[in-house]
């Protein structure tokens, strides 16, 4: 744990490197931001045309979008690069090299592979959330603000766990891209209110793959819609807890994966 300053240095190096290439960085950030902005506009157009979906209006649905995108961005900064490229690192033997370093490979990858590509996601997500909060006239007292911050952190942990969980099978099988895409396809469900779906899907996304905690339950709490849906104990406040539990599970799975890992020998 004395290595933390070192990990901080890695992240700093990345940020400095980013400042070097100013031109392309702006082009990339703006082009990514334009894609999310278009998505936001289309969701608004769709829900506005139909007035509501499962009793949620356009701005309420966009609040779901914002929570999902913001927590995804927070996780993406640290977890996207280390874990989506893990299969490739194992194939090239680069991962073996990482294992020989006197650092925790998990933390080392996390800090060395800090990604600078998520500022656009975060920017768009926070803007969308602010607009929704204004339009829906939600009171942002310290309690609600704290709730929002904790929700985003919990959501980020859930999204990070996804990156980890889906990458670990790469220790056993060479190709895992279909598994990754399948899990991330399932996450598409939470773009719209959970109550729009069949009860089996509601249970699946709460208990089996708890994606609904990323945005749906917290948004319910903020919008005073609690009590709708199949599973309704006092779940909205559980997001941070679900995030921590899931993340610890993912880390344990990662540890287990490494112990079972035998190099490809390349």
């Amino acid at each position, binding site marked *: 744990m004395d290595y933390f300053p070192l990990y901080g240095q890695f992240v700093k190096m990345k940020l400095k490197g980013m400042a070097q290439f100013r*031109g*392309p960085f702006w*082009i*990339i950030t703006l*082009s*990514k931001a*334009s*894609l999310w*902005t*278009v*998505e936001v*506009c*289309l969701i608004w*157009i*769709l*829900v506005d*045309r*139909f007035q509501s*979906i*499962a009793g949620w209006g356009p701005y309420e649905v966009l609040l779901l979008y914002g929570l999902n995108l913001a927590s995804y961005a927070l996780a993406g900064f640290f977890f996207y690069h280390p874990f989506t490229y893990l299969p490739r690192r194992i194939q090239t033997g680069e991962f073996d090299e990482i294992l020989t370093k006197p650092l925790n490979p998990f933390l080392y990858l996390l800090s060395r592979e800090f990604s600078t590509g998520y500022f656009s996601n975060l920017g768009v997500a926070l803007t969308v959330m602010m607009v929704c909060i204004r339009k829906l006239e939600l009171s942002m007292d310290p309690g609600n603000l704290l709730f929002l911050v904790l929700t985003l952190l919990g959501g980020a942990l859930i999204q990070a766990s996804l990156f980890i969980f889906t990458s670990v099978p790469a220790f056993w*099988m*060479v*190709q895992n*891209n*279909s*598994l990754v*895409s*399948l899990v991330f*396809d*399932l996450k*598409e*469900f939470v773009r*719209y209110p959970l109550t*729009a*779906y*069949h009860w089996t*899907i509601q249970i699946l996304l709460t208990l089996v793959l708890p994606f609904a905690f990323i945005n749906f339950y917290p948004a319910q709490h903020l919008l005073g819609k609690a009590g709708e849906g199949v599973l309704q104990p006092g779940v909205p406040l559980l997001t941070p807890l679900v995030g921590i539990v899931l993340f610890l599970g993912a880390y344990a799975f990662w540890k287990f994966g490494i112990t079972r890992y035998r190099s490809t020998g390349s």
Partner: protein
Amino acid sequence: MSIYLEFAKQAFRQRFIYRLNAYMMIVSSFLGLLILISVWKALYAGKTEVNGITYENMLQFLVLNMAIQSLIRSRIGQKIGERVENGAISLDLIRPITLKGYFLADQIGENVFGFLFSTLPAAAAAALLWGFAVPGEPFRFPLFVISLLLGIALMNQINYLFGLLAIWLKTAFFINFITGAVISLFAGSFVPLWFYPEPLYKISLLLPFHLVSFQPIAIYLGKKTLTEAGLIIGGQLVWMLLLLGLEKWMWRRAQTHIDVFGG
């Protein structure tokens, strides 16, 4: 003996992973469709029709759209952009036509594979579950096929032109995002143009993107008369010629632009 067993195990494992991947792709396609169908069902709750479009129309649209999207996918822009980025383009400048043809053939092969082994099975499953109608008029289906083929050509051409922008922007990373943004906004494949607010609808019709997949599907669903279908195909041909002209012009500009930098 044990070594043969090991071989057999390896062979089985590879087969298994390959098969698993293929099945997962079908499941993924089906899931995507299931999500969309659930969403539209919820949107239509308590409504018989919106802007003249019924829930049944929308169901058909979603199934067709999923199958078609796999056929019109194009990464030509990304590929050409990468060649610009790493400088290989300077060799291609001498023979731009052949390179484009090669990328196109590659893309079509990939798409047909994805269509046959991923989206078609998923679409067939959906058709069995929710039912599916075939156009009644004998001329409608051939017109749909012609407009779809032209749509595929248009999509690749549009994508290619976006890729050429890398010559001026000095990076290829933006291509998928910009192309994705422009196409999602104006093509009407995520939210059909029927539901667009008037100003955006008018703008979309002035651009070529609605001709890629939205209009062919509209022909299939009988939302266009046969005369209108003929006009759509005419429009696709005109746009294709315009965009081919634009490509020629861009290449000429690119040549002088690259000359400035000394090749």
